[in-house]
């Protein structure tokens, strides 16, 4: 039974070319389907503009899908701003990259962690105080930091405070958008370990969005690679990162610098990722793909089952 499921979700924006140009539809997310089971983590990787953050916002119900549907705990995602949606949001929380931007600089850490409890009317004053203390302990913040303001904390401590706040309403799903990208390696490891420990202790499901393949591999039970709004490969992270099947995943994995000998020969792609407003015909990756054939220009490849149970959207990968 899945907790969150996206079925054929697209998100289309209209942008103008220049000040007086005609509005052009931009498909930021295009026919994305996946589901997340309770207590599991789905990692979404991809480069800037691939639609991974938009997918996260649609999953949270902050944005409505232009096509397709989002189901959470068996019910269709309500309209944003409605009382049903607000109730549901207690079960669905967001953590993003910049903890300072996510916090109110004038409020103490304790006041901010208590805020969701007040908004959702959870407990009385005394219970809330106890709850805040317990949450801060769970994320490894010393009790004396509760009365500090965000600017008095280090980056790692702030991200812990943001997490404590996200966990306050006891959510079933956490959407984490680049949660450790702004942190130094040694602090990043602390926060990653804490996230996986909390997941184990509380059975939270996670949608973990990041450009950092190493971090995604570390935390995910399943991974989806996105390119220009579509999922191009999805499956077991160890299998995908050890032996990517889609030519884009191959290039992406091979581009990651690693200390020590590399397993996959580096593929350097030519050119930049195309503008989503100017999506190439057929497979969006074909202009940069070293293996492209004529079918790639004409036809959009569907995501289909390939070897070892993973799914790949490429004309050149044999179906299982």
């Amino acid at each position: 039974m899945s907790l969150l499921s996206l079925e054929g979700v697209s998100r289309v924006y209209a942008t103008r070319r220049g000040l007086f140009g005609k509005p052009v539809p931009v498909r930021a997310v295009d026919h994305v389907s996946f589901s997340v089971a309770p207590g599991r983590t789905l990692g979404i990787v991809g480069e800037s503009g691939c639609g991974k953050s938009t997918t996260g916002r649609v999953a949270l119900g902050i944005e409505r899908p232009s096509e397709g549907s989002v189901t959470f705990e068996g019910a269709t995602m309500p309209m944003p701003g409605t009382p049903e949606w607000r109730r549901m949001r207690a079960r669905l929380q967001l953590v993003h990259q910049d903890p300072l931007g996510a916090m109110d600089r004038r409020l103490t850490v304790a006041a901010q962690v208590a805020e969701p409890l007040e908004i959702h009317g959870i407990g009385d004053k005394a219970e809330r105080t106890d709850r805040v203390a317990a949450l801060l302990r769970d994320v490894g913040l010393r009790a004396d930091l509760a009365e500090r303001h965000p600017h008095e904390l280090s980056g790692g401590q702030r991200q812990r405070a943001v997490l404590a706040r996200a966990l306050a309403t006891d959510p079933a799903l956490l959407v984490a958008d680049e949660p450790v990208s702004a942190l130094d390696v040694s602090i990043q490891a602390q926060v990653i370990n804490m996230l996986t420990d909390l997941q184990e202790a509380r059975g939270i499901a996670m949608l973990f969005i990041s450009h950092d393949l190493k971090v995604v591999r570390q935390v995910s039970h399943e991974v989806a690679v996105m390119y220009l709004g579509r999922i191009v490969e999805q499956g077991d992270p160890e299998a995908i990162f050890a032996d990517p099947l889609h030519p884009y995943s191959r290039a992406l994995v091979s581009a990651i610098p690693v200390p020590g000998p590399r397993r996959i020969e580096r593929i350097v792609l030519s050119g930049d990722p195309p503008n989503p407003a100017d999506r190439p015909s057929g497979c969006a990756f074909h202009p940069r793909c070293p293996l492209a054939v004529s079918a790639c220009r004409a036809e959009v490849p569907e995501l289909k089952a390939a070897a070892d149970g993973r799914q790949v959207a490429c004309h050149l990968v044999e179906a299982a």
Partner: protein
Amino acid sequence: MTEPLVSIRDLRVAFHGMPALRGIDLDVAPGEAVGLVGESGCGKSVTWLAALGLLPGTATVGGSVKLQGQELLHAAPTVLDRVRGGRIAMIFQDPASALNPVKKVGVQVAEALRLHRGLEGAAAEAEVLRLFDQVGIPDAKRRIHIYPHEMSGGQNQRVMIAMALAGQPELLVADEPTTALDATIQAQILDLLRRLQQETGMALVLISHDLGVVAEMCRRVCVMYAGRIVEESPSEALFAHPRHPYTQGLLAALPDMVGPRRRLEAIPGGVPEPWNMPPGCAFAPRCDRATPECGAGMPGFVPVGPAHQAACIHVQPATVPA
């Protein structure tokens, strides 16, 4: 060893009396690629900003930075103007903010050519085209006439590199040159830097927080912590056999791309604040091997292998002289 191109001795920097660099010794040989790694605030960027006289007036700088015998610290502006962009060029993390947004990219590169090589008019334009070609900007004839905002981040970084090459530098200091770029674009830029280094024979100092980037690009690596170099080594030896507890901790904290997944070994605590520097070894409060002796004094370098040294009193010195 050949005579170093740049020789830094006991470089110290303080901002408002707070130490940021606490004695850096570093040589860069002609044509070599050296990596400086470390986390935010360890002083890896400050080292080169200080060396080139690019720090604000609030910084107090001491020690010595010599470029083939010529002292650069507190040198006259006329001396530094010849060196900066001429003999030593620098590129930064964010190319979009380093470029002038209201000038065409070709004009900006031509300006560097005029300043450092006295090229004007048609000669300058021909050289700009050659440089654009060299850094892999396609359709150079048209691209020299566009503005930075019309190019992608990767293309802007190529323009920055073209501008850096304009002065035919003997040393290129690249400060997190690919940190703001996507993985596939990062691979392109690293490839380009490697090729240019081979073609021109210039030395490269690569400043990065990413151990993987440094491992791939540099033959020699210095690991910095809290304003000091704590380990210096040929890069294979550093990643295969790190000796300083901080380097070991950094590598253990990094998730792997291959092999079985394991729990990350996080380094406890955080980097000490400049106003709260522990006595002796700055890493001791986070180190699982720390003993009371670690606080007694600044640990000196211990030779641990060929051209490999670590600043820790608990490492075993190599038996063969390094």
